[in-house]
């Protein structure tokens, strides 16, 4: 992903000899020829990442250093501490990397972070002494930094380590290698192949894993079905709660998205596997999660519209693109109001009670480890049965759709597909990864088509709704309406294309080859159950 105008300058990091302080090390360093003091000072350094650690997952460290003479944002490779790029930045980086005023770096950050905000992951306070290693023209060949670092942990500062960093300038690598050898020989410093920042991030990555919304709950095939389902539901409750803070603070739109997906998955599981619980017990939860889904829906719709505005603008000739601004302003206003309501929902007694009771319910469902299951069924059996039933329903609904079928039929099929996908994902650990991966990929292709068809419908309805809300007395409103009309035309055209594409997508999904894939899964589950 790092196709970037990068000079890939490698920074070499060293560990100080045991028992040596920064001050005593500096004394030995200064005895070496050609070493000149450049600067000394204390600065703050913040390692940024998304809430779920996307940059680190791609082996990138994003550090913003607030030092005298201007801050700087650096992208470093976590693999080999090469400097990928740097950007002067006086203030901390903006919440969204793609808004920085350097188009190439903005695009790079967009690719790396997607829609996620840059959030401080680790805060450091660094006492840095910098030296230059020069040649006989007083030209710097390498920068040498001795950094005594403290890390902020819950408001307290703790010593994180002292590191020596050698930053060779391009074209001086071979002579800098000689310097490194001398430093190792004369001072006893050791090469640190990993580096302090990577070690700190690695420790922090436990936090990233905890926050991930990716459904990857490990189940054993012989587990008692209810215990297995409770394990998945507990994970989903964790996802809901872990995203609450980000939704409240509106750091980025993915928090609400992840929260809502967890709600939908919970509802879907409760619906599909209702027989595993007493109907009396779960009906109130099904109703309340439906309420929660609804209460968070409007805000998500507005988020999606706002994310689509740039795409809508691209549908217009350049000179008319500004005519969509009133729609954006209207959406921003509505987003603000909806966010207020959403915060009230998440702070409400109803929501808090729901989550408390839900957690208590899940706790109660944990069976005694030694207790035998009611009818001897295992989760593998239940998973096979439910996935098979839903899969059959999807095929039946899909086969019934022809060119004349109403849009509602496609929407129904979309919903069935979603349910099937959720079930497959919940139970994916029961199946071989490559087989389940292939099935999910095929499902995705069909879902993309159905999802786009539905999205286009929602977008068209949304535009019509916003058109009615524009102030008719404003001088620019006719221009805004014309722009929206042009977009509507585009969306309708695309909708027809997507409808035509459906046939091919469903044919691929229902092909004998793909049916074999599903049947292999079912056979595998049967063997597991046996």
């Amino acid at each position, binding site marked *: 992903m790092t196709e970037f*105008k*990068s000079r890939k300058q490698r920074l070499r990091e060293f560990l100080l000899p045991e028992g040596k302080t920064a001050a005593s090390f500096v004394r030995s360093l200064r005895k070496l020829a050609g070493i000149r003091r450049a600067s000394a000072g204390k600065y703050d350094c913040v390692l940024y990442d998304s809430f779920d650690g996307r940059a680190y997952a791609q082996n990138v460290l994003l550090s913003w250093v607030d030092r005298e003479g201007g801050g700087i944002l650096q992208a470093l490779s976590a693999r080999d501490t090469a400097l990928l*790029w*740097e950007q002067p930045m006086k203030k901390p980086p903006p919440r969204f990397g793609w808004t920085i005023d*350097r188009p190439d*770096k903005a695009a790079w950050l967009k690719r790396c972070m997607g829609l996620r905000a840059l959030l401080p992951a680790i805060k450091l306070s660094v006492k840095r002494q910098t030296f230059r290693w020069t040649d006989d023209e007083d*030209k710097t060949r390498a920068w040498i930094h001795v950094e005594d670092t403290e890390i902020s942990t819950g408001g307290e500062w703790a010593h994180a380590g002292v590191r020596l960093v050698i930053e060779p300038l391009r074209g001086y690598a071979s002579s800098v290698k000689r310097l490194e050898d001398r430093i190792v020989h004369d001072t006893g410093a050791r090469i640190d192949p990993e580096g302090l920042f990577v070690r700190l991030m690695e420790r922090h990555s436990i936090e990233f894993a905890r926050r991930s919304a990716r459904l990857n709950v490990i189940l054993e095939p012989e587990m008692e079905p209810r215990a297995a389902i409770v394990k998945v539901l507990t994970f989903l409750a964790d996802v809901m709660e872990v995203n609450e803070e980000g939704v409240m603070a509106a750091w980025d739109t993915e928090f609400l998205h992840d929260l809502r997906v967890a709600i939908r998955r919970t509802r879907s599981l409760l619906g599909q596997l209702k027989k595993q619980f007493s109907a009396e017990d779960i009906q109130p939860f099904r109703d309340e999660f439906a309420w929660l889904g609804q209460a968070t829906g409007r805000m998500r719709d507005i988020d999606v519209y706002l994310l689509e505005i740039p795409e809508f603008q691209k549908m217009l000739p350049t000179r008319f693109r500004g005519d969509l601004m009133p729609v954006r302003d209207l959406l921003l206003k509505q987003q603000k109001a909806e966010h207020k309501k959403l915060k009230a929902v998440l702070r409400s007694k109803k929501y808090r009670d729901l989550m408390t009771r839900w957690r208590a319910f899940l706790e109660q469902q944990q069976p005694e480890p030694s207790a035998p299951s009611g009818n001897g069924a295992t989760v593998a059996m239940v998973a096979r049965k439910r996935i098979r039933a839903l899969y059959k329903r999807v095929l039946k609904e899909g086969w019934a759709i022809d060119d004349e079928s109403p849009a509602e039929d496609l929407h129904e099929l979309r919903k069935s597909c979603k349910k099937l996908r959720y079930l497959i994902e919940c139970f994916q650990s029961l199946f071989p990864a490559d087989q389940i991966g292939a099935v999910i990929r095929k499902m995705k292709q069909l879902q993309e088509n159905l999802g786009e068809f539905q999205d286009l419908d929602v977008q068209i309805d949304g535009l019509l709704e916003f058109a009615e809300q524009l102030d008719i007395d404003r001088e620019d409103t006719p221009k805004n309406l014309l722009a929206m009309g042009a977009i509507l035309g585009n969306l309708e055209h695309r909708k027809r294309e997507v409808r035509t594409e459906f046939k091919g997508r469903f044919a691929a999904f229902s092909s004998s080859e793909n049916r074999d894939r599903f049947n292999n899964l079912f056979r595998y589950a049967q063997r597991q159950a046996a």
Partner: protein
Amino acid sequence: MKVIASYNIKGGVGKTAAAVNLSYLAAGEGASTLVWDLDPQGAASFYFRIKPKIQMGGKGLFRRKRALERVIKGTDFPNLDLIPADFSYRNMDLILEGLRNPQNRIRKLLKPMAREYDYVFIDCPPSISLVSENVFKAANVLLVPTIPTTLSLRTLDQLVTFIAKRGYRNFTLLPFFSMVDRRKNIHRLITKHRPMGMGKFLDSTIPYASIVERMGTERAPLEVYARSSPAAGAFRSLWLELKTRL
């Protein structure tokens, strides 16, 4: 990648000062920037304290694979690298003449640099030669520092005629007034009544100032040692204006 050549047929007009100071400003904004000191006198290399020597010599540059990448040196400033001058550049015309497609060799050499750099500033040697024709083929902008005197304008006129005759269309010709001495009547007169038909002069002008000459003793761009001087301000204005024309 934009290639900006600081060029004039005449010497001593402020080409190197322009290349060094503008490249420093570009790099300071976070743009990955390269300066190629193509002048065998090596003034730009000297200002950046880099020895004016490349191991493979001028000939090697055109013969070896990925030659430029091998000779690039990092300056003391972030985002700013330099290809040093070499004394063998004085024979570059002869080297080029012996090669196939001699007018396009520099452009070809620079092409892979687009992966790494946003801007390349070429500090050109004075005169019109095969080297300068190579620069004309490679450049997006021909930045021409011009002293506001009759002789300098005459030289600029010669350049404009030459470009028109050869039909170069790949670059924008951007002359600007350099080493402007407000005490001199002729300088005031010419900068006020800009000559027509010699490319569109940039509005920014660089004053004649001893602080610029001090670059030789400081061996650093103006911003480093005289940030608040009017001359440093003039280069900042020039860079701002130049960016709008890229």
